[in-house]
């Protein structure tokens, strides 16, 4: 060895700071990103409100106050967001609807994440005939008219929350699978994957250790795009009368009802729409921040 010392001297001063995990570093980076951090805090507040908020109000989400139809917000009557066209308290209904919307969003995205990433990574990594068959399956599922399928399911099995989760989740993973497969194909060409092969590492270990972690950035962004999409799809289903059933509700259903009465009772539209918009907005900011934070090259 001649002189490695000269080339390395620059690095020695920083040598002490080492041994931090990927997640720890990501957290440090995320903390520095104001927008993402604010978004995370707002999201946390919305989550807490949605879960515990209804306890703060004396009203129930399903009880109609016939004497107070479409009443404006008021602290006195404790209808903080006013009431709807049959006199139900909108504060509680908005939070109650939020539970449904967020649950659909998270569960369906979770399903999409699990199936989509696994499907896409395996298809992209194994390649050849396996890839061909797996992606043709995706194409076929894409070709099925989604709405028609959902309506059919509803008719056959009856209206059921669980069914909505399954229906949306099984449709939304297709996008994820395609994106992940494309990314995997380009990662597969990377020399560190070949180096692992040359060392004799098993295929599924390579997928888990080398492919999946490098998909994190794009997956994080895609998840934050998918959650809003699912929430909107659920709203649409509710609008068609195929989503949640009265007296249960969701943000989409509330916005739909509020829009009908918006000339004389704008609060019925404003509050659910504000919650929905704030959530989608924050998810996008957080997604951006997560992608940057999970990029190891960024310091």
């Amino acid at each position, binding site marked *: 060895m001649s002189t490695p010392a000269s080339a390395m001297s620059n690095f020695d001063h920083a040598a002490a700071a*080492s041994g931090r995990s990927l997640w720890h570093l990501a957290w440090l980076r995320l903390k520095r990103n104001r927008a993402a951090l604010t978004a995370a805090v707002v999201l946390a507040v919305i989550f807490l409100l949605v879960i515990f908020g209804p306890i703060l109000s004396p009203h129930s989400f399903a009880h109609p106050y016939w004497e107070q139809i479409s009443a404006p917000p008021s602290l006195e009557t404790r209808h903080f967001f006013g009431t709807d066209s049959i006199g139900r308290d909108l504060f509680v209904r908005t939070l109650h609807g939020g539970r449904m919307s967020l649950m659909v969003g998270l569960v369906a995205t979770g399903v999409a994440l699990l199936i989509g990433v696994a499907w896409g990574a395996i298809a992209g990594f194994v390649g050849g005939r396996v890839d061909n068959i797996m992606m043709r399956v995706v194409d076929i599922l894409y070709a099925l008219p989604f709405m028609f399928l959902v309506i059919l399911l509803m008719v056959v099995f009856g209206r059921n929350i669980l069914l909505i989760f399954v229906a949306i989740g099984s449709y939304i993973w297709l996008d994820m699978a395609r994106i992940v497969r494309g990314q995997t194909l380009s990662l597969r060409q990377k020399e560190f994957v070949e*180096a692992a092969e040359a060392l*004799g590492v098993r295929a599924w270990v390579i997928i888990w250790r080398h492919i999946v972690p490098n998909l994190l950035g794009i997956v994080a962004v895609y998840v934050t795009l998918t959650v809003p999409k699912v929430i909107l799809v659920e709203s649409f289903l509710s609008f068609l009368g195929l989503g949640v059933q009265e007296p249960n509700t969701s943000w989409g259903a509330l916005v739909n009802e509020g829009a009908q009465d918006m000339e004389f009772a704008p609060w019925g539209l404003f509050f659910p729409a504000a919650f929905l918009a704030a959530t989608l907005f924050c998810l996008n900011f957080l997604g951006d921040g997560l992608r940057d934070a999970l990029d*190891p090259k960024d310091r």
Partner: protein
Amino acid sequence: MTARVQGSGFRVQEDPGQIEGSGQALVRIDGLTVDFHTEDGRVRAVEDLSFDIPKGGTVGLVGESGSGKSVTAMTLMRLIPTPPGEISAGRVEFDGQDLLSLSESRMRRIRGKRIGMIFQEPMTSLNPVFRIGEQVAEVLRQHEGLSRRAARDRTLDLLTQVGLPRPKQIIDSYPHQLSGGQKQRVMIAQAMSCEPDLLIADEPTTALDVTIQKQVLDLMGELQARYGMSLLFITHDLGVIAEVASQVVVMYRSHKVEEGPTEALFQRAEHPYTRGLIACRPALEGNPRRLLTVGDFMTAEGEALEVPSDRLLPQVKRSEAELDKDKPLVEVTDLKTWYPVTGGLFGKVVDQVRAVDGVSLTIRRGQTFGLVGESGCGKTTLGRSLLRLTEPTAGQIVFDGEQVTAADERALRRLRKRMQIIFQDPYSSLNPRMTVADILLEALREFRPKASRAEHRETASALLDRVGLSASHLGRYPHEFSGGQRQRIGIARALAVQPEFMVCDESVSALDVSVQAQILNLLLDLQEEFGLTYLFISHDLSVVNFISDYVGVMNEGKLVEYGTAEQIYTHPQQDYTKKLLAAIPRGL
């Protein structure tokens, strides 16, 4: 850290007026200082740099990556983004006007019209969605206000001048239909289109093969003579500089350390960094046992050192008779690796690309087999086929008496631990999400699954130590290292499974010459210590000559010539080999 370099100040050229050429300076850089504001504070990219570019003359700007040479070029074009960049001091005069104080709109009229630029990467500097003709004509229409028809005629003329074959066809081609050398010619045509007074070439031949490099260098010299323009040629390779420049400026860590006429510089360089740079490039003959590096000439602080005499002991190559006494380790018989070309709706195989087409060779234990050839000749595919990272189509590979070609998955996994590969690109060969410890531990666990984590960590530290890094680097991520250091990590990973045979696929091609010498020395040291056998693949003939016992020359998938390094380099038989050898930059 840089104060000393500056202190040792080598201002050979005190008076800029002395520079030869037509006597008058076209560009006059005076006391230029450029800073970048980063999260770690202010980083000085260029400090107090002064030099002139004479009218019609060529100045070579030499330095390793990060020395500030590209920043200098970008400053000349005023392409430094501010912020984060900041030109903190100094003047840049171009033909009498102060470039740094020009308005952006006036600068736009100079860029492309009076100063042209050629970049390193021909692959990415052309827009893939536009035809060649449109991209060249765009500059003409912008600056000369030519009509569509006139611009096309002029473009055709330019493409002919830069020596492109069938210009009428190329003008309507897309970039991906051209080879690297052809793209670089298009870039030159584009830069030349408005007959600029100054052409800045930033590592224009680094990504090209030697033969193409020679053609491009010749072309640039020819065009320069015809149009009487000035040339600023930026490179890390002094060998190339000697071919083109009459005047050289050497930069080291943001400072100019030396300047002078090329010939004088090569004969009596004063600054130890320049001397190191000249010495670290392997010559075709008379190399020392281990290459000298910049570190032999100066300390990290910039103090000159006396090169110890034992570092100058000449390299002794073994004779053919001696070499043939070693036992064969890898025997390849009539190996073919073809890639199917599919077409049509159902992906029917319509043609075959014969990447490797019937190669037979023997690599003996403890020796280095060098494989040279131009890009696309199949040398990389051959290396990968030996490890079956690419499935061979036909033929036989025998490793230490065992069939590689017929091995099932388990046998192959076992075999692969005895054969490793070191890749070209130090950036993509390490997983960016794993620490150095994780990378090494993965390899170590494959090798000895039963050992404890503590034992593995100990081995990993020892490995790092062996390749010239330290255990304190274990917790870091690949992006925290320089290219040369990453290549060391790649070598450590390959060593982890204690292989007998290593394929080095262009392993030093992406590195600066001074770092390249260090890595070559490391490979030689490791070979001596562990009795390793190498297949060393490279397009750089002088490197292959230095490291190899046997050399094979590949062309179009076939091994066209084969012999000891000495036979190939002193008595080449094939025309193709002769052509390759003639293209090597000779230096001075």
